[in-house]
């Protein structure tokens, strides 16, 4: 049976979600998305460029009919800004599945959980299906789930830092406690970080900078695809226990 995951009634095979920011060109972005195997990409909602309306658009390169666009509220620092942004996104795209992110400060881009929870409640009340960026706190994750978040997306490390999963214990606790999908969002720097997230039992990983800022984004996108797949397989396989000391692999009996 295929190993799929489902969020808000929609089923996906790829467990890697990639961002579409920071790329050198739309062509490179599209090639990286293809190499990553991602079925979902995050996108931002911004003012159209009225001074130059004829310039190429993301939708010319990444087809929203083939790849699910997940509108994100990156850059919003209050619940109101995020809600306003997603109402526009719903009108622009026509879908309810969105990613909510309400930031607390520019330096760390840590989420403001009070505003995030407030925005989640309002959005759910308006029929949105929010996947929610949050701190790696199992209690906050539970509160978001109770408020109607369709996926919990704890940070592994600050956005764009590439520091990897800083707290495996809290990510694992969130995974164990959640009834909705859990995806690490932010902090992945290289392939092994993505594998760690998947080995902890996460349903998926979301990343942008780790691919976009690699020297060769398309090759890194493929590395991330493989890392997510292998991390997932390792999780399903069930890793061996850890020991404090050595344990020989060859039989001790029959030694000459």
């Amino acid at each position: 049976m295929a190993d799929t995951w489902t969020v808000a009634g929609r089923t996906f095979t790829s467990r890697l979600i990639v961002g579409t920011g920071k790329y050198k060109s739309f062509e490179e972005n599209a090639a990286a998305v293809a190499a990553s195997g991602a079925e979902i990409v995050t996108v931002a909602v911004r003012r159209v460029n009225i001074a130059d309306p004829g310039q190429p658009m993301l939708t010319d390169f990444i087809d929203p009919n083939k790849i699910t666009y997940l509108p994100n509220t990156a850059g919003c620092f209050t619940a109101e800004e995020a809600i306003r942004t997603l109402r526009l996104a719903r009108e622009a795209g026509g879908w309810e599945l969105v990613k909510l992110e309400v930031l607390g400060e520019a330096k760390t881009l840590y989420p403001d959980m009070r505003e995030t929870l407030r925005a989640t409640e309002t959005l759910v009340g308006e029929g949105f299906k929010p996947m929610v960026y949050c701190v790696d706190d199992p209690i906050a994750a539970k509160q978001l789930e109770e408020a109607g978040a369709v996926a919990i997306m704890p940070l592994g490390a600050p956005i764009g830092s590439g520091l990897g999963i800083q707290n495996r214990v809290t990510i694992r606790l969130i995974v164990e406690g959640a009834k909705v999908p859990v995806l690490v969002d932010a902090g992945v720097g290289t392939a092994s970080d993505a594998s760690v997230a998947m080995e902890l039992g996460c349903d998926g990983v979301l990343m942008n900078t780790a691919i976009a800022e690699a020297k060769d984004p398309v090759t890194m996108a493929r590395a991330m695809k493989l890392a997510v797949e292998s991390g997932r397989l390792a999780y399903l396989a069930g890793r061996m226990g850890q020991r404090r000391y050595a344990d020989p692999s060859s039989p001790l009996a029959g030694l000459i």
Partner: protein
Amino acid sequence: MVHDGTISIRVNGGHRRVVAGISVAELALELGLEPTRVAVERNLEIVPRSTLAEVRVEDGDDYEIVTFVGGG
């Protein structure tokens, strides 16, 4: 109001004059935008895409016109 058949509005933070009586869809086209690829907010209220051709632009309106761009 200037009596030359135009009205004053704001679009994405910038001032503009347009011919009185046009619809929001016509405004988008005048700006070089494909109405089906953008979302429009008029005085902080969403203008549903299905009504873009019916809603009239009025003097003093404040518009935000957005679309999807690359982002994380």
